[in-house]
């Protein structure tokens, strides 16, 4: 049988190449990379220690010395905003990861097994979801206390439901696929089918959910800390820097105290959303065909409808 032999490339390389060709992804990655670098090198970039107080230079607007001004205790805002980013991003990423982990495991099991297990987990998820989130968070915070790690745990425990529903939905549809039937016919065990066969096929929506959740949790942390319930002010985060804005005088006269943290949140979240969009475009293994010449088949089949 004459068949053309074609060069083989690993999926990882192709994925990265496609990702870098996607404008959304590139913009998003640039934004968040810059901000992450800024967060890590906060001290070097700003030339100041975020905790160094210099009350004499308190409440100064943006100037060449202090690009983002100083707060009431004379601390350099640029340095605080950048290092606040470090905490906020850390919280966002880790909380998202944990929430996704919980949601994925529960969703995979409930989605594949169905029946009673599914009913039970669904009811639990509905309970958590319908409970007013703020109250839930307050309860957990009062039980666990404040602090970065507790905030992360609280977010993970209250934020897994969307990923759960997503993964469950994917599993419901995928478990009817022929390759899953084939696996059953070959006698594969349930865990093997769930985690080694179906799960890799749901990675695309899970990764997208992961990136979107980062944004959600950063905003959630901001809200929480703004209310004074999240991370205490001793460790700056974008959220608790915003507590300054609780004072209407600050909003009017010392705008640099809250505008820069707020903008940082907005820009970072925007960047994350861009990356999420780009990932969504690129992650389907059938999207950018690995063989240039069979591109036409994929595109045509998609346009004209599958034969028969």
């Amino acid at each position, binding site marked *: *049988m004459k*068949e053309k*032999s*074609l060069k*083989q490339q690993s*999926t990882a390389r192709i994925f990265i190449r496609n990702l870098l060709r996607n404008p959304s992804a590139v913009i998003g990655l640039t934004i968040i990379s810059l901000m992450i670098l800024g967060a890590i090198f906060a001290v070097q970039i700003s030339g100041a220690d975020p905790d160094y107080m210099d009350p004499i230079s308190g409440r100064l607007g943006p100037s060449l010395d202090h690009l983002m001004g100083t707060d009431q205790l004379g601390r350099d805002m640029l340095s605080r905003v950048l290092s606040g980013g470090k905490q906020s991003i850390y919280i966002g990423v880790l909380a998202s990861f944990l929430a996704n982990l919980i949601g994925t495991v529960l969703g995979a099991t409930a989605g594949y097994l169905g029946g009673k297990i599914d009913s039970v987990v669904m009811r639990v998820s509905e309970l958590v979801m319908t409970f007013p989130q703020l109250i839930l968070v307050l309860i957990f915070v009062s039980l666990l206390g404040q602090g970065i790690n507790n905030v992360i745990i609280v977010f993970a425990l209250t934020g897994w439901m969307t990923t759960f529903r997503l993964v469950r939905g994917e599993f419901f549809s995928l478990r009817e*696929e*022929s*390759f899953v*039937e*084939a*696996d*059953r*016919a*070959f*006698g*594969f065990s349930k865990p*093997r089918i769930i985690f080694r*066969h179906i799960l*890799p*096929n749901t*990675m695309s929506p899970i990764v997208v959910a992961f990136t979107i959740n980062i944004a959600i949790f950063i905003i959630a942390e901001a809200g929480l800390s703004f209310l004074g319930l999240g991370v205490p002010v001793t460790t700056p985060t974008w959220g608790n820097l915003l507590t300054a804005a609780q004072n209407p005088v600050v909003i009017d006269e010392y705008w640099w105290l809250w505008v820069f943290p707020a903008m940082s949140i907005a820009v970072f979240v925007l960047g994350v959303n861009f990356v999420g969009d780009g990932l969504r475009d690129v992650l389907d*293994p*059938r999207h950018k*065909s*690995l*063989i240039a010449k*069979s591109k036409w088949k*994929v595109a045509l089949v998609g346009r004209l409808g*599958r*034969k*028969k």
Partner: protein
Amino acid sequence: MSNTRTPLYKVGQIKKHFPVLGGVLRRTKGYVKALDGVDLEVFRGETISVIGESGCGKTTLGRMLALLDKPTGGELSFDFGQGLQDVTSLRGADQMRFRKKVQMIFQDPYTSFNPRQRVGAAMDEVLRVHGVKDEAERSARILEACEMVNIRPEYLQRYPHEFSGGQRQRLAIARCLATKPELIIADEIVSALDVSIQAQIVNLLLKIQKETGLSFIFVTHDVAVARYVGHRVAVMYLGNVVEILPADSLPEAAEHPYTIALLSAVPSMNPTAKDQRVALQGEVPSPIDMPKGCAFSTRCPSVMDICRTERPVLKISNISKGDHQVACHLNKGAK
């Protein structure tokens, strides 16, 4: 095929009834009788084609035979070498033994492989799960299987979507062959393929059977292909096997009125053979609302009173005797 030999796989009055739940209290309103008492015997080294139209239960039968679904009644017995043994109660290692011997290939070539797994890895995994511990032996088996289906070994590194439909079906066949089965159930494996590719796959199956002596159960809606591929053909209607006859004797020897009608509806290149077309009226009745007696009684042109009350059983044909069974009251055959 002599009836005195033990069959490889025996199907005895298999039933598959799906309950239909209704009302607020979800009470059982009725049953969808996908399979309603199917008898079949498959012998070593033979291909039996199972044909029928939508709703006849042939796909359900195929899945049942591969133990993907449990029957609600009847017996399934397989000969592992020491006589027929019931397979529905097998668990664990015994069930794995069965699964090694009985493999299945599915209709849709586009989804029968995990899109995220390289095809070589997929085949390797199957062998590992079936206890072939030695890596060298796994490779050897996979290469041997690929050679039989004409797939070059270097393509094993690829992902499923890099192959055409025909190639994927060949890979699916190779995946089954690697476990060295005794029976392969092929569920409409060529229906989604182009005509000339169908011919390639069909010829491949014939070649494999000649070289390995495997048995095949070939489920299809295409009567002409069924006749070409099979030694015997089993015709199904509404969950029953209504006729089993040697493929060679089709279409002339068909006796059951449904088989005759089905055959006459199949378009043919031969103009003279189309003179007696039996136009079947109406549609297939719903499998929930099955007629009493013979399932075909509502549309049969030769229906008699007894047909409406008593379900006919598969008996040896009185006309052709030999290896021909019909389930019809018109057949006053011996047992």
